């Protein structure tokens, strides 16, 4: 007991830290090709969002750069519409200066107008992915819309995860009166049809990104709560938690230092599934006019606009928004799937 370890060996030992759970998960994840590709797609979206937030791209989405409903470049400009020829008047020209009370001032106004330079902005005939009814660039609009939609999805999922995990942990760990109360709360939330609950919150909170996040988080935590609670009940009676109690670890430490890391994979996967779900719900809300404000754009508002455009044959806004959403949601789901496979200890076999 008196022998002191030489410093060099102690150092050597600490560096021999073994592969942790997360390292092992990453190793398994790398072997999953589908997961890796979807991770790359999600990262690409993330990069785009970062650029959009910093204003490098998509910040000018509100500029009316093209002609109204400019078609995408690859289709080519609209053929000039045939104007119906106007019948030219046949009678002789009549001098109206006698009866026109403003006639003496025309010259003066022309003088004044000359003091200002007028520039005629040339509206583009075509845009890369087309323009909307005001001639705004659909590509820029979609990039900005991606930023908001993904932000709403991720933020709402994080808040919902926080609420669900916290309540689930307390409900599952303590049980008894606290557990009963939380179960009651959960049942109240679950017994109301989801869409009705969302509308009720939306009606109270009004429009805007923040309200959408709050609405989604307040209605979406129940699934997370149920799952985390079940995990905490299961782990709470495990011997390693008992052992922690025996060495005097506090309730808080047992809940969040011992049990939480052991159920984190469940929470992580659930969070990514929630993100996908919330992105879709945001689209529905915005489509119904309960989503983001009018001066903001999201995938949902774009789809809502597309409804009236489609009748006129302007399909590009719908197509672009759908494409972005489909690619992101699919990639995110596949990534979550691969993540679950990589993290699920049950698949680890006899270790």
């Amino acid at each position, binding site marked *: *007991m008196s022998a*002191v*370890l030489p410093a060099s*060996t*102690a150092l050597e*030992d*600490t*560096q*021999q*830290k*073994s*592969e*942790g*759970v997360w390292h092992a998960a990453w190793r398994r994840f790398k072997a999953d090709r589908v997961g890796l590709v979807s991770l790359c797609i999600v990262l690409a979206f993330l990069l785009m969002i970062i650029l959009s937030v910093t204003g490098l791209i998509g910040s000018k989405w509100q500029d009316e750069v093209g002609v109204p409903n400019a078609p995408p470049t690859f289709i080519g400009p609209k053929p000039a519409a045939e104007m119906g020829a106007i019948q030219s008047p046949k009678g002789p020209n009549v001098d109206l200066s006698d009866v026109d009370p403003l006639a003496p001032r025309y010259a003066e106004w022309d003088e004044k107008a000359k003091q200002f330079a007028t520039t005629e902005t040339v509206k583009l005939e075509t845009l890369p992915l087309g323009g909307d009814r005001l001639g705004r660039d659909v590509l820029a609009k979609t990039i900005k819309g991606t930023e908001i939609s993904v932000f709403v999805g991720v933020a709402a999922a994080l808040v919902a995860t926080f609420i669900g995990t916290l309540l689930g942990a307390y409900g599952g760990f303590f049980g008894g009166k606290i557990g009963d109360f939380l179960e009651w709360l959960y049942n109240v939330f679950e017994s109301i049809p989801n869409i009705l609950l969302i509308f009720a919150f939306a009606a109270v909170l009004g429009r805007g990104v923040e309200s959408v996040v709050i609405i989604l988080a307040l209605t979406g935590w129940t699934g997370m709560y149920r799952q985390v609670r079940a995990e905490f009940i299961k782990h709470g009676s*495990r*011997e*390693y938690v*008992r*052992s*922690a*109690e*025996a*060495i*005097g*670890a*506090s309730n808080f*430490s047992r809940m969040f230092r*011992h049990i939480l*890391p*052991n159920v984190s994979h469940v929470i992580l996967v659930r969070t990514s599934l929630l993100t996908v779900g919330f992105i879709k719900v945001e689209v529905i809300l915005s489509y119904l006019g309960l989503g983001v404000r009018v001066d903001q754009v999201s995938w949902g508002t774009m789809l809502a606009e597309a409804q009236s455009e489609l009748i006129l044959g302007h399909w590009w806004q719908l197509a672009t928004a759908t494409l972005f959403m489909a690619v992101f949601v699919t990639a995110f789901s596949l990534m979550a799937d691969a993540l679950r496979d990589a993290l699920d*200890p049950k698949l680890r*076999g006899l*270790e």
Partner: protein
Amino acid sequence: MLLSIKDLKVAFRMGKGVVAEAVGRGNSGVSFDIPENSTLALVGESGSGKSVTAMSVLNLLPDNAVRTGAITWQGQNLLTKSLREMQAMRGKEIACVFQDPMSSLNPVFAVGDQLCEPLMKHLGLSARQAWKRAEELLGEVGIPDPTRRMKSYPHEMSGGQQQRVMIAMALACEPKLLIADEPTTALDVTIQRQIIELLGKLKTTHQMSVLFISHDLGLVGEIADHVVVMRHGLIREQGPVARIFADPHDDYTRALLACRPSLDVNPARLMVIDDHISAARAAAAGEATAAEVQAKPKDANAPVVLEVRGLAKSFWLKQGVFGKREFKAVQNVNFKLRRGHTLGVVGESGSGKTTMGLTLLRLHEPTAGEVIFDGKNLLTLSAAERLPMRRRIQVVFQNPYASLNPRFTIGQTLIEPMTIHGIGKDTAEREQRARVLLEKVGLDGRAFGKYPHEFSGGQRQRVAIARCLTLNPEVMVLDEAVSALDVSVQAQVLNLLKDLQDEFGLSYVFISHDLAVVRFISDEVLVMKDGVVVEQASAAEILAAPKQDYTKRLLAAIPRGYRAAA
């Protein structure tokens, strides 16, 4: 010859060209024969490849297993059979009984339905015939009132009864060979005895052979005709049981025989495998080995550290809609534990011994009684007063696979309790102390940064003991601390516990169902049954003159190895 295994090698493909050899090493494989109407026992520690060998007979291995060699069953090579042909054989010709009956039975079907399935599938009986036959089988394996039990679900039965059902299921199609993979390891000693007797009886009535897999050579001696000892994927020794016990040729076999605590001799230390093998080498080289140390007597007047008076614990069971019924798990337990002494608590599962241990620590809230520790009643302390007491009474749980947090490194596991109780100035000092303790329990410093899943059961149990020691406890409650371990590993851990007791003057409350183990380590023994202490005496006295029938039964249940007369 019923089954003949020649040069069998089994390896698992681990991906990327990595192959793990499970049975056989290099060019040498495993060979043995099972004659008709005989019992062959495969003995070895976990990881010795004994289960893999047995499972490869029926090809019940994972898909990544590669088998080479020959397995001949009545003249046919089983390795070349298709899956369909194997399925026709499974259950009909060769049947299996596994270790854990609870997870082998399907919880949503009644026992009768599960028994009828193989009868209808393999023997083509009608539903009514099958039901009748199943009932006979249940009666044959000794389940009382089989007519009623046919409709029971697995959770309504005890572990021993479930194992009987598994055996009945295996017998359903009159197999010629029964493979029993550690069928009694999960059971109490008394139940183990019954199952062993049942298997012996069925072997003669059904004219079948048994391939019995176990880590306990003592148990095997009572049932086997031939013994095959395996270690590290190779056969160390094989022969008739009488020869193996009377004249073991291999050092490892001798060590296995010596490492189980027995009732006849009580050494101060148990032989462990490595000791034994090195001692044998030394003897062969003509050196004298150290004489066996006799247990030194303990100070009978050592101060009492823990006194328990009238401890009781009841659970309330719901009955009907509003009714509650009291279930007395522990009643009126009294004892005094002196410094440096060990109190053994013995009983079958359900006897309340674990509940008693957890109540002492207040991991369960007691119903009545006093636990006097250092002049204070632990059971009336407030939460704040309890924390310093927690430090001084520690617990080691049964299952080393479950009692360590899988997401903590061994270092984190050891440092956490010191941080909570403010032992050591800073993390560096705590780490230093943790490393010293790791060496004390026989693990090297490299273990510090590893995770629990990288260790074997015995090593994990050492970590759990080291975690307790970080707090300098005075009393340790060992709740079936060695029951989940192999006999050889069990011996190492028991020795470690004794050494630590001598060095630190620890007092133990040692809870176990195995009287032989309790006798080895304890000074005083409490025998519990249905929550009541039925007998309380010194360890030697309990062994020499048990007063209660229950104690006698426990004693009789301990495997005694091969007896020529038996």
